[in-house]
């Protein structure tokens, strides 16, 4: 029994960690701008494409990984400056539409560059290696992801709670206008938020695509949406919430992928129900349920509307 469940559980934890790294970007941006950054999933995908091209150019690993992260950060920064900053006083719907426009642009740009073909993700030594754990074969990345995720999240929480820029971020997310009046340079804070979010998405993309092997222009959309669901699930604006939500979604999703086999092995059924189809749908069903039952999510703060 354990041998049946374990591979799915391991993949689930790994995928959960990767979603967590993307979800942090969503939750931080939402906390500050109250904007669903629909382009975030595509930034994640662009990071994957950048890795493909940079590795293909023959640069050594210790240069190419920092370079990818740097470029991803730059993309996040530029997107914010071009597409969101001019709309700061516009209705929220306009900014969201702008975000959708950016997502569309990034996808089409990558389609143009790659010619719409699947690009195979380069093998990164060490984390691409196979490893056996409790008699289950998996990639090293499966074991590294949760550890790396936790380390990065702890670092991020420290940054937010202990540093000056972190304090500014917290202030801005509490009250946009007042913090501006207190002399916080809002634009810098927002830029830093986008840069942090993009770098984490970049790290996530390295881990995620090492697992999945190929990148195409649409491969950012689904993980992006799921990471957003994770952020909502955990309580939007809360970083620990996003991480917990991402792990839960990652694990559930992968268990559903293997549910048919698990049920069969457990002797509960003899026929296959094709339940694996529902691994994506589950995430969204979870989203709708959580929005109805507890719209603030697991760790979210209650926001009351003022008339």
């Amino acid at each position, binding site marked *: 029994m354990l041998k049946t469940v374990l591979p799915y559980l391991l993949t689930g934890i790994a995928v959960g960690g990767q979603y967590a790294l993307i979800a942090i970007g969503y939750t931080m941006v939402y906390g500050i701008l109250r904007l669903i950054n629909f382009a975030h999933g595509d930034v994640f995908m662009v990071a994957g494409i950048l890795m493909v091209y940079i590795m293909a150019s023959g640069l050594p690993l210790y240069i190419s990984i920092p370079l990818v992260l740097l470029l991803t950060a730059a993309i996040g920064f530029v997107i914010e400056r071009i597409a969101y900053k001019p709309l700061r006083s516009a209705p929220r*719907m306009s900014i969201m539409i702008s975000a959708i426009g950016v997502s569309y*642009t990034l996808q089409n740009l990558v389609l143009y560059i790659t010619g719409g073909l699947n690009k195979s993700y380069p093998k990164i030594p060490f984390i691409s290696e196979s490893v056996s754990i409790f008699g289950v074969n998996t990639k090293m990345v499966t074991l590294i992801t949760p550890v790396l995720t936790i380390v990065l999240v702890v670092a991020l929480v420290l940054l937010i709670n202990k540093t000056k820029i972190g304090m500014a971020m917290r202030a801005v997310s509490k009250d946009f206008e007042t913090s501006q009046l207190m002399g916080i340079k809002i634009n810098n804070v927002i830029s830093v938020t986008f840069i942090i979010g993009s770098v984490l998405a970049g790290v996530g993309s390295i881990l995620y695509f090492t697992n999945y092997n190929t990148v195409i222009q649409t491969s950012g959309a689904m993980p992006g949406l799921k990471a957003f669901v994770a952020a909502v699930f955990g309580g939007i604006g809360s970083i620990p919430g996003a991480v917990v939500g991402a792990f839960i979604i990652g694990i559930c999703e992968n268990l559903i992928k293997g549910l048919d086999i698990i049920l069969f092995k457990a002797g509960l059924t003899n026929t296959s129900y094709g339940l694996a189809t529902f691994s994506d749908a589950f995430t969204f069903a979870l989203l709708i349920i959580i929005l109805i039952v507890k719209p603030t999510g697991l760790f979210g703060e209650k926001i009351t509307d003022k008339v």
Partner: protein
Amino acid sequence: MMKNTRSGSYAQPQEKTVKLSTVLSALVILLVYAAVFVAEQTLPSTSILFTVLKKGATYALVAVSMNLLNGFTGLFSLGQAGFMLIGAYAYGILTIPVEQRMNVYQYYDGGIVQFALPVVPALIIAGLCAAAFAFLIGLPVLRLKSDYLAIATLGFAEIVRTIFQWDKLGFLTNGSNLLREYPTFNDFNIKGADGEVTLYLSTLVPFIIAGVCIALIVLLLRSSYGRAFMAIRDDEIAAEAMGINLAKHKQIAFCVSSFFAGIGGAMLAMYQNTVQAKAFTSAMTYEILLIVVIGGIGSVTGSCISSFLFVACSEWWLRFLDQKQMIGNFEVPLLRNGFRLVVFSIIIMIVVLFFRQGIMGTKELPDLFKPRRGGKKPKRSVKEKAEQAKENAKEALQAEEQITLTAAEAAETGAAVAAEAAGEEAASLKDKAEEAKEALKEALAQEAAAAAEAETVEGGEA
């Protein structure tokens, strides 16, 4: 939430100008239909123009249905692709001819549905199916606020897409296989005995379907329901305070929008000849949203115009960007497969960032024929002014009569107080009468002046 105080185009119907502008708009629409009909009979049926027109009509309906929700009711919903999928599948499932079913449902023993409906009932049922799903999903999610609603409806669309591809429902939906062999737009062409087409209707029919549906939406928007929707958009709390039942009206807007999205989906199925659940992704919803934005959020006309522009750009006018182009011996750089979409997305970003009003803003077709507000006002002629002054004077004379009457009344009662009061009143009224007399004089003078002016004008002309 959108809390701008724009006046809806349906808010204040102006009596005289509306009629003329409505007639002109109706003429324009009629001309478009006539042009489509004539073009179809004269141009070769393989022309790209007809592809654009058919797909454009389909997208116009879907865009207007989305605009009803996003632009007029202020509900930011991203579930359009899901409702289109339901409509497309309902249409396909209901209309595949019985003798073709074994062929289409080859892995599912011909499927469970063993009858075929005519096109129009099938279209209506397609809409109703979408609306029924919308009703069910609307019960919980319509309580959510702006972006949560967006993401919940987006999630709903993804769930629908998965369910329709589920193997176990294959007897109904054909699993992840194509639905085909149902009546398409081309089946509307009337053929002679020898199989030659005698009357081309394959483009006109989608125009008519979309036109009827859009007309129904416009009628809804002009009704008290439409005004309630706009009130909800402009300020939800104020609308509730005015006695609008928020839950009910949101539910109505959501179901009606989904109904027409369902019909739009069925039209898309007819346009494509085959339909597959896989294609109805969130990217499709985004495309429709961008059409709505380009046309102007809150303008039915804008949505229609921009869908044709959008389809024409993506299918036709920008196609050259995907091929190598030579100017003399110089090969234009960058042009290769996919460049069209890059240019296209940049255009869209420019519209989104710098022309947020879109093509039409919140204006409608009849508004284009109206004199501009704040611009040239029709000048009132001197004669009219004189007429007005005369009328004022008449009123003044009547007032004077009134004074004498009141005074007489006072005298009759003989009460000193009453007399005093009446006297005071009389004094004020006398003043007025005085003024009125002066006004009358002025009016007469003006009339004389007008007559003189008219004479001079006539003299000049002579």
